[in-house]
């Protein structure tokens, strides 16, 4: 019986690599959002205005969403 060779460009293989790439992008994105939280913190300390707490809260929610998205994507892909 002849051995079946798998095509490296099979859709399954491509999708698996795509999933890995997407997860890697999201991990970097989550790290970036944490840096943004740090940056916003620094900026808010330097210039204290009325909207500083709102910006700070937004950056924290944004970072939380980015981290949550990694788990979500891990699950649905």
């Amino acid at each position, binding site marked *: 019986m002849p051995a079946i060779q798998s095509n490296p460009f099979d*859709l399954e293989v491509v999708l698996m690599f795509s999933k890995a790439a997407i997860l890697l992008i999201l991990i970097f994105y989550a790290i970036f959002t944490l840096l943004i939280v740090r940056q916003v913190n620094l900026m808010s300390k*330097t210039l204290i205005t009325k909207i500083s707490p709102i910006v700070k809260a937004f950056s924290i929610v944004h970072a939380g969403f980015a981290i949550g998205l990694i788990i979500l994507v891990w699950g649905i892909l």
Partner: protein
Amino acid sequence: MFSSYIEHPIGCRLEGQDPDEKILLLLRAHPITNIPWIVFAIFVFAVPFIVQKAAPLFEFSLALVPQSFILVLLIINYLLVLVVTFEGFLSWYFNVYIVTDKNIVDVDFHSILFKNIDVAPLRNIEDTSSSMGGILNSIFHYGNVTIQTAGATKNIDFQSVPRPHHVADFILDEVHKIYGKGKDARHPV
């Protein structure tokens, strides 16, 4: 709150501001300088529509890609729009130039990890100059103000601020107040 030229701002303080120090003028770059990142954000926002329209031209069917992947790619795309917008706003909002009754402060956040604050006491200001050139600058009336300081200290530049000539004059007026309305001033008006 989101203005780029505020005289005597209320509810605004600066790191290291003395209790008796008052902010006289708060400046940001003119809002029109935000156009590049806004255009980029709109372009990124439109990418899924462009891909949808362009895919048949390259004989590629999006039906081959699982729905879950399309959904995730869409989310990533709109996250990119969000981060471009947020970063653009942060960079504009927190890069400020401040004139207090004691100092001139230039707060710069060049990138996500780089912070630079230049402070020059008003008494060290030698002279100021303003420049405005280009089509957009003339239409929207914004430009640069250069503040020369005494000694070897670095000059302070206000980039793309509204009403540059007025700002230069405002700073000199404050310097003259320190030197007794120009009586003892070393600086020509």
